């Protein structure tokens, strides 16, 4: 049970405090309700580029990192399709430094042309490092475009193409900031060796006078229900053929999310999972095979992704995979299998909750989803899933008309 206190400043900033006096550290986590899904399709990659610019100086403070490091702190940030999260950890005595820095960049960035010019290049190198200069690096660019026709999950957080990042202008940066990075769209979580009363005073002192901004109303086009299987293939200079399949699954707040999550674990989690045992170990068709999902807030994707053993044809591999899919759709799973993945989930949650930083991030996420208290009922929701739920979800998710298949051939 994670305890926390919650209050809201007059400008709409939601503040959560989680006290843990067993650590000498404090964590300050700010989550903004803006991610790659909120981008203009002609300016993809912007939320992530923007995350870089948040370190390029704010209106009163020329450099974010230096004063934090001087106070013994460390920080980082990440952008997903759904949100952007900034977090820092420092000795609890110096927590006010984090309030000073974070509140100033929420007040306003410096909007430096130099910072924009440099970070455009840095992000382009990041794009190259992870998605161009790596074998199979473009798999998810291709698969997302196949699986999504309408919803902005069609593109990756890094962006659809390099030119979108290269063409970003300072006016775009300003617009994005004042649209999304306002107190009403943000959640502040403070955790560790801190007291709620003091945090309330600090929050009012540093964040209280920031104009609230306008609540961002998200009106994203919903992905239409897929009604026929989709297929694509591509040839690339890679050593091995790869097979990638996806199916649409429910969003994060749907009750169908929990069985879907457990299904991916049953099929692909670890050395005793079904697909690994059948297709890698027994039939020896794949040299590696994973089953996972993206945990997105809007309806997401279940993915199965594997590299074929040389000499095995794509059709043979795909058919063997189909047999496993048919098996779970027809016969579901055993009580023991279900208990196993529930036990694993319990374990994962306990290990995640060991770190104060991870607890702070989770609180922010659940608050963003609507209620931080959800963090404490999550395990219970997994425990309630039955083998009948798994059977039903398998049949909904693995409907052939809901499937997307990509053959990624070695040239």
């Amino acid at each position: 049970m994670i305890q926390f206190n919650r209050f809201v400043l007059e400008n709409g900033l939601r503040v959560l405090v989680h006290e843990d006096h067993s650590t000498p550290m404090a964590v300050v986590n700010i989550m903004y309700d803006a991610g790659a899904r909120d981008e203009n399709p002609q300016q993809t990659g912007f939320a992530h580029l923007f995350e870089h610019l948040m370190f390029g100086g704010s209106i009163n403070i020329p450099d974010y990192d230096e004063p934090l490091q001087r106070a013994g702190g460390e920080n980082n940030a990440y952008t997903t399709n759904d949100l952007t999260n900034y977090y820092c950890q420092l000795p609890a005595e110096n927590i006010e430094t984090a309030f000073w820095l974070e509140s100033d960049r929420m007040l306003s960035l410096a909007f430096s042309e130099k910072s924009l010019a440099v970070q455009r290049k840095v992000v382009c190198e990041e794009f190259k490092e992870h998605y161009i200069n790596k074998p199979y690096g473009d798999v998810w660019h291709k698969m997302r475009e196949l699986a999504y026709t309408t919803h902005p999950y069609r593109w990756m957080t890094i962006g659809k193409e390099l030119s979108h990042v290269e063409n970003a202008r300072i006016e775009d940066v300003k617009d994005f900031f004042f649209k999304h990075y306002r107190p009403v769209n943000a959640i502040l979580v403070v955790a560790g060796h801190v007291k709620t009363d003091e945090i309330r005073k600090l929050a009012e002192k540093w964040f209280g006078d920031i104009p609230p901004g306008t609540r961002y109303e998200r009106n994203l086009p919903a992905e239409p229900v897929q009604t026929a299987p989709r297929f694509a293939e591509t040839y690339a200079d890679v050593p091995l053929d790869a097979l990638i399949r996806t199916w649409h699954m429910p969003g994060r707040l749907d009750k169908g999310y929990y069985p879907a999550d457990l299904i991916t674990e049953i099929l692909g989690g670890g050395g005793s999972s079904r697909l690994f045992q059948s297709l890698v170990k027994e039939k020896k068709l794949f040299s590696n095979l994973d089953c996972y999902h993206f945990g997105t807030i809007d309806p997401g994707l279940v993915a199965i992704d594997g590299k074929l053993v040389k000499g095995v044809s794509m059709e043979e591999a795909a058919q063997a995979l189909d047999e496993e899919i048919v098996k779970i759709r027809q016969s579901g799973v055993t009580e023991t299998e279900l208990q196993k993945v529930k036990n694993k989930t319990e374990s994962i949650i306990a290990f995640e909750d060991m770190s104060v930083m991870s607890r702070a991030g989770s609180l922010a996420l659940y608050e963003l989803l609507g209620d931080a208290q959800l963090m404490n009922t999550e395990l219970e929701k997994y425990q309630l899933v039955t083998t009948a739920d798994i059977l039903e979800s398998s049949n909904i998710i693995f409907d052939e008309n809901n499937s997307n298949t990509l053959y990624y051939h070695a040239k």
Partner: protein
Amino acid sequence: MQNRKVAPPIVDAVDLNLVLKPCDRYKLDNGVPVYAVDAGAEEVIMVEWVFYAGNWYEQNNIVAATTNFMLKNGTKKHKAFAINEHFEFYGAYLNRQCYNETATITLHCLAKHLEHVLPMVAELLTESIFPQEELDIYRQNQKQRLEVNLKKCDFVANRLIDEYIYGFHHPYGRYTSTLDYDRLEQEELKAFYRQYYTYGKCLVFTAGKLPANMQQLLNSIFGSLPLNQAEIPAVTFNAAPAAEKKYNIINDPDGVQCAIRMARDFPNRKHPDFAGAQVLNNIFGGFFGSRLMSNIREDKGYTYGIHSYLQNHIHNSAWMISTEAGRDVSAATIAEVYKEMALLRNEPVPEEELDLVRNYMMGSLLGDLDGPFQIIARWKNYILNDLDESYFYNTIGIIRKITAAELQEMANKYLQDEAFYELSVV
């Protein structure tokens, strides 16, 4: 209204009183030493078995890593699937890792399941059989994995730079080809397993919310195993560094980035310069605010990241600079690294910058000591390097007191251009 231009007062992290929580030590009946840190609020436990079974002790390439990998691929009583299912049913994670001198088995699980999973670990240590079919699958899949990795410039660069520093016949410089996988023999794995695991020297590290009967539990399951019966062979290797210092490799003619590695040899942790070099390294390229990052990423945008570090080896180390930069700016990146080295040699580090790095390192150390797994990891590092907590307090003393003049002297001693290997892989 507060003045936002002025930073709030801070407590200098160098003044923090950092304490390394002691670890409990005891021995099992067979002499296996156990190091334990009982701490934390969550009901979780980590147990790690460390063996002197790294590639330092193998006769043929990849035997140590394969033995380590295949420990859980079959015993006299259980097939690989049943072993995996046993751990996974209890939500436990059993990982193994092969290093140069040592190889480990690491268990993470909920405290309530500990006694259900420990006996299976004991079985893996005494009854693994390395089935031929499992070896064949492993061989095929590892060869495929290697083929994919060899397409990556960073992977290729990491292999080659170590070869230049240590020589291919040194365990730190050796790497694997598909032929090495072809040559693997079941019997050789079994022999390596018997000598270095079943009868080998073993140390146990454990941390988390430990049960009151942890010592008895470990002793009843592991205390009567034949561990610690074989002496660790005295094996020595001399580094045979390459004569040529500069290399340009085209691995992928269409590559858009270049993996750059620059490195020189450096003594191990016991050398009196080691802790000071860590401070100098932080200034140079050891954290986000370092000179390499500030110049090459934050000012010029040549790369997503550039780092320098001292390799964490037991016998000897190397000082390494590592980045993936745009192909068209790779020469410029290398030139900037040399410029930063010259600056450190020629000018003392300004006091303000040095203060920042001292505070950053102390704050980071404080964060690193947060939680039982982090504390035991530090102890493990000291124990395997034959050090004790005085090393910790000595390092803190050096972070607090080292002067700009001493750092400049150290830069002149070690950061000499001609001592560095320079490798670019496109």
